[in-house]
């Protein structure tokens, strides 16, 4: 009985996570949609899948003129990274996996700003290996974005998972998070905490 209640709770939890954008200001996460609602998805065998690096609820009303962050793409012999895309003309002054991006023209403010798109192709046949995507600070620069009107103002970004150590997105994994062996309750709480900070202990 206890297991059943727990399972129902977890299912409800997972549903609520995937249905809403990280409500906290200045969140950064990888999503399977440009609206920043799906952090869990699949890379179907042989087809192109797109992920979106999104800044959610930017606290600056002026948009952004650049950003810095490190993107930890899981290494897999069956995952091919096809291309990266950016919303406007830019230059990256860092080397993969680090990104220190300046935009030639600021991106206007909105609730969700797509910072970058990443395209993948999976050559993985069933059973697929779960892939965990993480974000991080850069050694020389904490993850942040530059204000659209005054680039001297740098605003820290916070991972949508609640902590840099927790994955911000899972591909080919079980979205019923508890079913994933490597995915612990602590990480689940971090994920939950990012969506519902008021209930985080």
């Amino acid at each position: 009985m206890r297991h059943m209640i727990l399972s129902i709770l977890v299912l409800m939890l997972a549903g609520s996570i995937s249905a809403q954008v990280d409500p906290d200001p200045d969140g950064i996460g990888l999503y399977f949609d440009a609206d920043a609602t799906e952090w869990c998805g699949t890379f179907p065998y042989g087809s192109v899948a797109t992920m979106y690096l999104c800044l959610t609820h930017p606290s600056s009303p002026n948009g952004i003129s650049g950003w810095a962050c490190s993107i930890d793409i899981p290494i897999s012999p069956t995952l091919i990274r096809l291309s990266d895309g950016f919303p406007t003309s830019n230059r990256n002054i860092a080397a993969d996996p680090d990104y220190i991006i300046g935009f030639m023209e600021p991106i206007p403010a909105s609730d969700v700003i797509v910072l970058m798109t990443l395209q993948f192709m999976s050559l993985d046949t069933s059973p697929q290996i779960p892939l965990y995507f993480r974000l991080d600070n850069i050694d020389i620069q904490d993850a942040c974005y530059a204000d659209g009107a005054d680039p001297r103002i740098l605003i820290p970004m916070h991972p949508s998972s609640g902590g840099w150590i927790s994955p911000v997105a899972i591909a080919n994994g079980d979205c019923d998070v508890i079913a994933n062996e490597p995915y612990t309750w602590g990480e689940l709480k971090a994920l939950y905490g990012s969506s519902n900070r008021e209930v985080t202990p």
Partner: protein
Amino acid sequence: MRRHLCTLAILAALTCTATAGIPDLGMSDWSCRTDQDVTILICPAGDGIPLDAAWPVGGGDPVDATIDVWVRDGNGTPVAYFPFEDIWLDGPHLYLCPGGSVAEESTDPQGHTYFRTLFAGGTAFGDQTVRINGDAISGHVPNMRLVSPDVHPDLVVNVTDLVIMAQSLYGSYNTAADLDSDGQINLTDVVLLIQHYNHTCP
């Protein structure tokens, strides 16, 4: 005796007349509207930070660092309508576009004009000079730090400047790449450079 005095008076009058309307380096001067140390971001395309919105070193709201120039003749009389092309700002390590630092307009009836926009690259810390017809006039500015995304001063913001910025970001501090004068090289400096990427003299 009286004849000599008359001659001297006539000569003096002639001298005054001769210098009237001609800028005198000793009588003309210039100054800045702020005493604060400021940073001015200049760009060969002229779309940097204008002097009237200068960034105070150490942070804070922009301040008006417009440079005013008063052109006077040898009698101390304002020289009106003196052409702006013949009044320019100069400084060591300042790389100017052709005509890139001339006054905004010709002098008004009070002999006044000003500098607000520069078309230049390079980095110049203090020692700015205002010249009239090529000759320096006396004046004072605060510690004005002119910096440019054209870090390698060739009057175009290009990959060379980006490389210097990257080297400064990952290597040792390069004051020329510190475009906001906050003592560190970070995302802000990268953005300030990239916002002017490919810019060159008009």
